[in-house]
């Protein structure tokens, strides 16, 4: 068992690790992930007693504190108990020594084997890592990147250590070699204690059972790899996941705002966090147990912004909403999909307080919504499906966009005008006087919809409830506006409830999706999961009907079985 207690490292005045607590049980594979420069390699080197900075804290291996060992004791610890496969594969081998000599070196240094036996062991090790025996006599420049990596792995196994550290084990490799090396690593990891240090989430996913997310020298989230990747709870973990190109998630790539800074006070992530509160800048959050994982966040991880419980709404005797429960967390897009008449717009209207629900509760920012005040509308804005209805025809474009600012009393007159113009520009509209003075009912459908979007964005809300906001736009303008919304989401944590019947669009913009049918939510979950393995037959139909670009006939002849059943039922008056 390897135990790390309150480990701190600084280079000069620059603190790299700011108090790491970790426990790695024997035979466990733990991954440490985080952006470049968060101190992953520093941590790895510290475990080997090779860190050049000032080190405080405790690292215990078999009841012995590594950090207080003498230089000689550290030397015997290295490679015999802990070995490492270094990040810089291309240069980690001595160019003037053969692979065999280098693998053999630590065995002979510790006089573990006679020369004969060591030579024999080199050949066994080479075989174990999938190299031919001939490789022993080759020099590093005669080996490919993948082969070098295998030699490094063989070398790490030489003295049969209990703990192996893998620092970015695949970052230098091409995709195919990467898969092979991962397979090899998985094999050698069995029965050993392994620490995988990487910024490649897919490596962590493949190799490790447990994952620690490191940010700016602190662990911010720690738990089972699978759970963390499926459902990240710390804003930083989610940011990492969103910026990592992979074949599993479908949403467009989004980064993390700002860049890593050396934060001295408060939560290390606060300059980049979209949900920070004043406390975040003053106090360091402790890493605390929260259900299935540990999180270091004053708000307990990503907060729930909006939640409904069993919302019911009837028009006459038709149930437009039938016990609808949804949850919308900060900085996330929830797509609500379903055919027309399934109750999507009703849901939006109930949330905005434009309709009253018969029963059920709505929570906003943790407290139950009873009546909505001005403050609520400052944070929550809606983009309507038919903007003509909500923009008074007596207003010109400029007045329409300024109106919310007037209501909320934000800025001076001049400032308001500037803000309005900026919002109009962002939605790709003109800002010349003739356009600003034009009355809403003279605008084309696409233009008025964009004015509506500008109107919603202008007061910089936290949550936008958007009802088919881009359905009247042509694809190229829609693409720009979607990009804009996602950018605002990335920068400020804009939360979106995005109602659409465009499945393909939902796939690109949402983190989670809720499928509505006849006022009920029949399926809900992470978009990638729902769309890759839909459970409800109606969801399957929706997916079949989604636009594709391939010309196979099979697409057109796909039958929408469930919808046909529904139609039959309707006709028979069910």
């Amino acid at each position, binding site marked *: 068992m390897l135990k790390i207690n309150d480990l701190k490292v600084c280079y000069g005045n620059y603190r790299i690790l700011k108090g790491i607590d970790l426990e790695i049980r024997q035979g466990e594979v733990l991954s440490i992930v985080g952006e470049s420069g968060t101190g992953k390699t520093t941590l790895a080197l510290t475990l080997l007693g090779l860190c050049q900075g000032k080190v405080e804290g405790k690292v215990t291996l078999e009841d012995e504190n590594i950090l207080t060992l003498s230089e000689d004791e550290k030397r015997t610890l290295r490679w015999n108990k802990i070995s490492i496969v270094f990040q810089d594969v291309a240069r980690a081998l001595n160019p*003037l020594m053969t692979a065999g000599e280098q693998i053999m*070196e630590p065995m002979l*240094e510790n006089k573990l084997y006679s020369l004969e036996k060591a030579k024999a062991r080199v050949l066994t090790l080479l075989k174990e890592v999938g190299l031919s025996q001939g490789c022993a006599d080759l020099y590093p420049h005669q080996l490919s990147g993948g082969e070098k990596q295998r030699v490094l792995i063989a070398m790490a196994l030489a003295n049969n250590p209990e703990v192996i550290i893998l620092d970015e084990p695949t970052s230098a490799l091409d995709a195919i070699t990467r898969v092979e090396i991962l397979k090899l690593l998985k094999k050698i990891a069995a029965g050993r204690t392994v620490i995988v240090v990487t910024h490649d989430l897919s490596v962590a996913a493949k190799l490790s059972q447990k994952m620690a997310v490191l940010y700016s020298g602190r662990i911010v989230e720690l738990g089972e790899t699978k759970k963390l990747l499926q459902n990240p709870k710390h804003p930083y973990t989610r940011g990492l996941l969103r910026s990592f190109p992979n074949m599993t998630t479908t949403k467009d790539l989004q980064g993390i705002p700002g860049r890593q800074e050396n934060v001295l006070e408060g939560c290390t992530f606060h300059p980049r966090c979209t949900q920070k509160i004043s406390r975040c800048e003053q106090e360091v959050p402790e890493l605390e147990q929260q259900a299935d994982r540990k999180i270091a966040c004053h708000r307990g991880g990503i907060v729930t912004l909006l939640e409904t419980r069993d919302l019911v709404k009837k028009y006459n005797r038709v149930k437009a909403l039938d016990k609808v429960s949804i949850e919308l967390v900060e900085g996330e897009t929830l797509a609500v999909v379903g055919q027309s008449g399934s109750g999507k717009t009703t849901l939006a209207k109930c949330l905005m307080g434009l309709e009253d629900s018969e029963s059920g509760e709505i929570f906003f920012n943790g407290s139950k919504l009873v009546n909505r005040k001005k403050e609520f509308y400052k944070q929550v804005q809606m983009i309507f499906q038919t903007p003509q209805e909500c923009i008074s025809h007596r207003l010109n474009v400029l007045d329409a966009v300024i109106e919310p600012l007037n209501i909320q009393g934000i800025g001076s007159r001049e400032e308001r005008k500037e803000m309005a113009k900026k919002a109009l520009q962002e939605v790709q509209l003109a800002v010349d006087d003739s356009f600003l003075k034009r009355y809403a009912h003279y605008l084309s459908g696409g233009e008025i919809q964009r004015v509506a979007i500008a109107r919603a964005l202008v007061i910089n809300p936290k949550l936008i409830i958007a009802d088919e906001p881009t359905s009247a736009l042509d694809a190229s303008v829609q693409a720009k506006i979607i990009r804009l919304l996602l950018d605002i989401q990335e920068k400020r944590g804009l939360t979106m409830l995005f109602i659409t019947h465009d499945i393909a669009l939902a796939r690109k913009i949402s983190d989670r999706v809720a499928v509505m049918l006849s006022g009920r939510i029949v399926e809900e979950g992470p978009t990638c999961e729902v769309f890759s393995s839909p459970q409800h037959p109606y969801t399957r139909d929706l997916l079949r009907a989604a636009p594709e670009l391939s010309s196979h006939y099979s697409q057109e002849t796909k039958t929408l079985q469930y919808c046909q059943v529904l139609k039959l039922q309707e006709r028979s008056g069910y």
Partner: protein
Amino acid sequence: MKKKALDYLLAFIIIISLNFLLPRLLPGDPLAAIYGEEALIAMTSELEAELIERFGLDKSLPEQFIIYLSSLLKADLGYSYYYETSVTKLILGALPWTLLLVGLGLVLSTLLGFILGLESGWNRGRWQDKGILTGLMLLNGFPDFFIGILLLLVFAVSLGIFPLSGALTPYTGLSGFALVRDILWHLSLPLAAVVLSEITASYLLTRTTVITILGEPFILTARAKGLKDTAIRYRHVGKNSLLPILTRTGIRVGRIFAGAIFIEIVFAYPGLGVLIFNSLMARDYPVLQGIFLLVAIGVLATNFIVDLLYKKIDPRVV
């Protein structure tokens, strides 16, 4: 390596051709260019005719080149009218002393510089490093001959431990071990002067190389493997640092030879340096030309040896 050998052959041909062409292309009388005006003044007309005949100066250039080559093959570098003996003989008389001085100087200064550089770079920033660095930088401030003069004054003139000049004690008829001792005794001061003036270059190069190599990832690997300091220092750092030093050695031969000329003069050491000096004074062109040809070939040969050594150490070179 084949290509390398070809390069050397080409360089060799160019050197020989230049040596042949340059005096003949100079404006004026080619004989004057080959022998120097002064030699000609003292020359009788029969001798002049004989020389023109001998070099084929009345023939076409290609024919002259063939004559030149064939005399080179016979190791005939011409005749010195100043010394009144053949140039080949003169050079052969001086060459061993220079080879001894320059060769040993090159090897010793490189070796010592390497050892000190390794020590210094390994201990970068600590007292060992600071001490060696300051000492050698100070030494580097003096001109080559000045070090020679200083050594001469202190150890030969004042203390009298070493001889003032020469390479041998004349007319003693020493042989065997006694002769070797006598030679070494005479060699000591000039050699020390050469080594002292050359050591800084190889030291500084080694030191920077060692510092760069210490930052290489494979050194971190070696450390992580739990190797002892000596193993890391010599097997990993040392061997890798040798490469740039070897490369530079080939380049340094020319420079060290030039430096040795002054030192030979200071110690009246009867090598090529003194010969060059005297020939320059007497405008004895054939001797000078012969020596330059030899030096050029010497530099070429050293580089060739360096290349061979490099290949032995660095597996990446094919």
